[in-house]
């Protein structure tokens, strides 16, 4: 008894946006979050279920004018198989590599992972440190228009985003990182496969000799949404990584997080792991 009375499967973004304008629509992409959540009652399906999987313009990874654009329907497997992602967006690639299982990676989309807005969402932390923007398309005044929102502003809380009900997340845009840019994502779970992050760590910076510039640090699963950690970033900015700097940055990070206790871990353990794993990530960057 799902309450779905209408199923639609548009073939263009324009058509999809039009259908969305009519209201009462649940969007379906990979379904890996939507299906279990609708079954366990966390998500109420609206009368119209709209699959956007036939919308070709929502697919694919492209590079133009120093920007990378990733279509919302790009699957986690496609990201993992992309040479561009693997070589230039390492943090995102690492997140996709540790994402759930093969079966889920084959179905799950990056747009879905973003719109699900889980505090532990694997792609969100890399997108934060890569300064990604999300593209939202709608036909609210009759013509198809898009707006871009920084990912940090898009994520509002668990399952909550800045997407309006009439909008479709159509893609992600980010500047292709410059040379000597490093990015890194570390997913900490209790097992090497099929796991939800207990905490995750993202780091991106331009490296000049031993020093890091333009440092971005983000953490997952330690607050209602994945967060940037400006104090940790400031502690690292322009500094050569040594044990002292790493310790100061780790202490700063600890003050910026607000983990909770749940069935997966206690807040105390999450704090300890943020400190230990952030330290480990930084030490790894230093020694690389």
């Amino acid at each position, binding site marked *: *008894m799902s309450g779905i009375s209408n199923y639609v499967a548009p073939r263009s973004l324009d058509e999809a946006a039009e259908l969305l304008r009519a209201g009462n629509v649940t969007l379906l992409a990979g379904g890996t979050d939507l299906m279990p959540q609708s079954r366990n009652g966390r998500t109420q399906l609206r009368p119209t279920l709209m699959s956007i999987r036939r919308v070709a313009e929502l697919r694919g990874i492209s590079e133009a004018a120093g920007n990378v654009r990733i279509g919302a329907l790009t699957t986690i497997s496609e990201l993992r198989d992309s040479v561009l992602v693997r070589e230039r967006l390492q943090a995102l690639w690492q997140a996709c590599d540790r994402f759930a299982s093969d079966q889920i990676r084959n179905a799950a989309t990056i747009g879905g992972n973003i719109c699900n807005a889980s505090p532990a969402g694997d792609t969100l932390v890399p997108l934060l440190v890569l300064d990604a923007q999300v593209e939202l398309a709608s036909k609210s005044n009759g013509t198809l228009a898009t707006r871009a929102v920084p990912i940090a502003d898009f994520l509002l809380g668990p399952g909550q985003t800045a997407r309006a009900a009439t909008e479709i997340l159509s893609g992600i845009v980010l500047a292709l990182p410059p040379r000597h840019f490093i990015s890194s994502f570390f997913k*900490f779970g*209790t*097992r*090497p*496969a*099929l*796991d*939800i992050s207990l905490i995750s760590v993202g780091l991106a910076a331009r490296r000049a000799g031993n020093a890091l510039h333009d440092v971005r640090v983000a953490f997952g699963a330690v607050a209602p949404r994945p967060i940037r950690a400006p104090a940790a970033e400031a502690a690292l900015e322009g500094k050569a990584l040594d044990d002292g700097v790493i310790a100061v940055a780790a202490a700063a990070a600890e003050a910026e997080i607000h983990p909770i206790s749940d*069935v*997966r*871990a*206690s807040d*105390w*353990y999450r704090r*300890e*792991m943020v400190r*230990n*794993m952030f330290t*480990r990530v930084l030490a790894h960057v230093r020694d690389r």
Partner: protein
Amino acid sequence: MGAAVDIARGETLIGKRVPKMDAPEKASGRTRYIHDINLPGQLHAKILRAGVVHARIVSIDTSAAKALPGVHAVITAADVPWQRPIGVAKDHLPLKTDRVRSPRDEIAAVAADSAEIAEAALRLIKVTYDPLPVVTSAEDALRPGAPLLHGEELTWTAPDGRREVLHAPSPDNVAMTFNYAQGDVARGEAESDTVVEDVFWLHYVTHCCMGVSGVIAEFDADDNLRLYSNTQVPFLHKREFAELLGIDPGRIRVIQPPIGGGFGSKLDIYPFEPIAIFLAKITQRPVKLIFTREEEFLASPTRQPVLLKLRSGCKRDGTLTFRTVDTLHDNGAYTSWGATTPFVMMQTISSLYRVPHCQYRTRAVYTNNPYAGSFRGYGNLQATFAVEAHMDKLAEAVGMDPVTFRLRNAQEPGEITPQGMHFKSCGFKQCLETAALRSDFRRKHNEYRAKWHDSNPLKRGVGMASMLHVGGGAKIYPSDGCGTILKIDDFAHLTLITGASEIGQGSETVLAQLVCEELGLPLSAVTVVNNDTDITPWDVGVHASRTTFVAGNSAIGAARKAKAKILAAAAAKLELPVERLGLRAGCVVETGSGNRFIEIGKLIRSLHFSDKAELVMTTHYYEPPSQHQDREFKGDVSAAYAWATQVAEVEVDTMTGIVRLLRITGAHDVGRVLNRLGIEGQIEGGIVMGQGYATTENLIVENGVVRNPSFRDYKLVTAPEIPAIDISFIETMDGEGPQGAKGVGEAPAICVAAAVANAIYNATGVRLYALPFTPENVYRALKGQAQPPVWRVAS
């Protein structure tokens, strides 16, 4: 890898690598589990569970559910006033009358045209509850003034008005007690140079069978019940269902479709089974009831959680002196087999090593928690965990290495222990020595220990643990036997009809091997029939690692009778003395030379289609020569005992608490290897189950509520976590075993957690007293932040 067996050349099948007979069907997805079976006219049932932990039922309104189109029946306890309590202590009514004691409790059930309609109908049932105070732990249950879970007697009124008390009140929440003693522990303690005492906590885990629970019940026009069931004990349950329904057991037929995992979970009757039967009776339609995965977590049994206090001592020379054990078992809201696991635990405590003085006191206590059933190992994982921790602690205290200390106290062949167990075959010392040698234990144990204070956050350690478990049945019921019917048709095709159930352990293949070995026929000549109580002869059930041993001996007995009949006929036909004849490669042959006289099929045809028209069909019932224990739990309960030593090598990440299993080196006294491929699979599977118990699996129960009823948060071991596994078989050729074999179904799961605990200590210098070794629990212990278990039990 062993070469393929060439039966045509008359080679033996014993010890070879024989693929399981059901493997092609399973691997190609053809196997029809209960989930795949649909009967004409079948209805689908769903159960409404309480969702509240402890409450009085004030009212139940099913009117809206009954009115939903597609619903055929909605029942509550009021609709089945004749229902009788189920379970080991008969303290559990399938449908609850006036009170719920656990969120899983069954309030109502629906039979409808589809599972979706049944589900929708459940949501229309209105129940009001009056909450009662919740008993969340066994310690709390024993506190004076604690709310009583079963404080009132449970009575049953027969249709003729006769009233019976089926469960007496439990005025102190104690569901069951076991006490055992040998020698004089005070004297043992006085003789000790070293004494250690610790409290251990063994947590909740559950079986996680890939096939969720399910049943199909139907009555025929004569009111005979046919039950499609995943039970592990079809004949015992036939009797129990008959009692439950007040009918003659002869009118119940249990058919077992291939079972998607048992591991002990299907040894008891659970409410969903009688409920499906009630619905089938009321609707006069076949009723199918299949759990959801969430239901499987909430409403199938758990392994028994145990708080255990152990006090042990030894002399300066390493000789064990005494053991005193107190345990508290959280029984949950009702009594199932979990309450009786102390029966097995005491065997390990009294008899794994030679201990002159032992005292064992244990209570299983009612709480509002999930209730515990039987689970592979049956309490032995819990007992072994504590005993083997103390073996290491005592060894360290007297300055001996763990191997030498264990060898000094290990049992030997011929020993009759103070509990009365007689170890006719016993490869324990070879197990210890082999596992130690193959894992390079002594060297690593010294080297790893020397690195406790190194700067490297990754620490390695080795730990060992051993186990003793029944390997020749367990005489707990009036009979521990199994029957076989063997039919050889006129093309020398064998139909092996056995009482023994296949639950994935490979019994069909091993039984076929044993029979073929006697009759000189290829495995391809065998069909095994083992899943229908109207056809198969009696068997006590698949439990206690007994099937290979007991059903194997039964099958061999039937095969030998058939062989005698064939040889006698051949002797008459060939006019040769029977002593000169044997069966090999499908023929009657001359013993010694191997010269072929006649094909078995041809000989049987000549018997069958002759004036005498004789069939070759034999039966055999095998009862192992074991004893019932006396009232003090003394006696030789099994015809043979299995032994094993396992060494775990681990890597502990001290920055995260993650314990990675690198290698398990196991040496198992299996009597004799029958199917090498099968036993390797069974032991590897058991080790991985033990690994899950040790490191990842944890059914989180808070205030009576299961917090993680899904595979997302109940973590089974995944493929990349499985360690390298090195298994050695110690073949002691048990004199009573089929071809010398002993049962080892449970053995491999039993000592993994104990070995891992000892390995973590060897890696870090920190000993953990509570399972599971999840990263957070280990990290806490490493940081000195863990709360070790304490014994705060009212006496």
